[in-house]
């Protein structure tokens, strides 16, 4: 469904991606892990078209989307809940969800809204509140719900568990699992919380300084001693 091949992305002179190849198939949850600054967020943003890669191709359902602007990429069915959530803080929760539905047809709005509220009931209670005043967990739920409002076929999630209490993390991971299993949503997930994310995933990739260094099924990666040492020590 999504294929990234030989992608190089720069921020000015700084090279963040150095020839990344990944593949995400229909119906999968694919997890990407890696140290801080490895280029994970840059990869997700490159898929969404902001920034564009200097070299390499991104294709979605066989269509080359490498040079499309972000607002056209999301219309093709790739939505992102980005790093840092980036909800619109001076808009209400409801307006944020309306923004999420910009790419989809307006007669789908009510249905998508109902589904979003079903996944995250707290958002319904908070719908008239300014999004900037939500708690961190609520903001994360809003960011995911906003991405789902466009009824995407591929959902990109950048560190949805960052800074959240274990209970909220579990709730969010359950939602990811639910939309994948029930609605067949394809998910590409970036996580620091490697244990949970790899357990959830069908497959995973490991990124080191702008390169993919390893890939395999979620279980293979979890069992790999190198990965255990680098990403799973402590905690779990």
């Amino acid at each position: 469904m999504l294929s990234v091949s030989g992608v190089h992305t720069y921020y000015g002179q700084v090279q963040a991606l150095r020839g990344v190849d990944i593949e995400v198939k229909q119906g999968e949850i694919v997890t990407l892990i890696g140290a801080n600054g490895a280029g994970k967020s840059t990869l997700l943003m490159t898929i969404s078209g902001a920034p564009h890669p200097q070299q390499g191709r991104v294709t979605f359902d066989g269509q080359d989307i490498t040079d499309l602007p972000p607002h056209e990429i999301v219309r093709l069915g790739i939505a992102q809940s980005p790093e840092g959530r980036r909800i619109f803080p001076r808009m209400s929760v409801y307006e944020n969800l309306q923004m999420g539905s910009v790419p989809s047809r307006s007669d789908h709005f009510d249905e998508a809204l109902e589904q979003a509220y079903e996944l995250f009931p707290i958002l319904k209670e908070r719908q008239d509140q300014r999004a900037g005043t939500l708690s961190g967990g609520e903001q994360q739920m809003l960011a995911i719900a906003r991405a789902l409002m466009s009824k995407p076929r591929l959902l990109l999630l950048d560190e949805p568990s960052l800074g959240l209490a274990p209970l909220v993390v579990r709730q969010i991971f359950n939602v990811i699992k639910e939309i994948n299993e029930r609605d067949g949503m394809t998910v590409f997930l970036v996580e620091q919380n490697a244990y949970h994310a790899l357990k959830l995933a069908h497959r995973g990739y490991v990124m080191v300084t702008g390169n993919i260094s390893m890939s395999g099924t979620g279980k293979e990666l979890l069992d790999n001693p190198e990965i255990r040492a680098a990403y799973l020590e402590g905690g779990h």
Partner: protein
Amino acid sequence: MEYFIQQLINGLTLGAIYGLIAIGYTMVYGIIGMINFAHGEIYMIGAFVSFIAFLVLGAVGITYIPLALLVVLLLAMVFSAIYGWSVERIAYRPLRGAPRLSPLISAIGMSIFLQNYVQILQGARVKAMQPLISGGFTLMEHDGFTVTISYLQIFIIVLTIVLMAVFATVIGKTALGRAQRACEQDRVMASLVGVNVDRTISLTFVMGASLAAVAGLMVTIYYGVIDFYIGFLAGIKAFTAAVLGGIGSMPGAMLGGLLIGLVEAFWSAYFSIEYKDVAVFSILVLVLIFRPTGILGKPEVDKV
């Protein structure tokens, strides 16, 4: 007292005009974080289009005033919108991502170009028009001094209120307004949810320009004289209004406009008419020093 009330009415009328121009500054600043230095010229073009349109309508015999006003209003808005759109395409869009000083300089270049363009096309002499609407209401009379509000003043104030209501609705309630606010808050995120950011910025320039055009029309019929240079002073005053009200805030722009109009009217009436502009610019300096966020502005001083 009567004198005071009369100045209040005059000041509010003037302030409505400044407020309409100020909204263009504030909307553009809100969305791209930069001042549109060619905005005063868009207002001037609105005034010229109005002037020419009145002449043409008069020549073809359309003398029914409400109809003439409506036609001229639409023409002025459309033409100014095209110029506002062009300013964004020529002076701002190619420099997106360039250092902040670059689009500022290119916009000043646009401003000088537009002034000279109108001067060459229309001549440097002042253009004068017969009063279109005369008469008014006498509100009070005392010791031989009368307080009047002219039909023209009523027209200006009512039209301003109507436009404010329309714009507040567009920005607060429509998809376009939401897209504009989203671009203001996080432009990259707006594009990730499917907003065409370039188009939204263009439309913001267009909306600001059409309000400036209405102000141009109002000045043309209120004072009856215009020249190619009016955009400069009115532009700085409206900019002052926008800064005073809190740049980026729509209600702030209107409030600032009204205050500037009142200051100008009262200063002219009670002190000296020669120094009214100095009074206004002193406000700009004082606000920038002591309260750069303005009356209703958000405390984001780093962006100013």
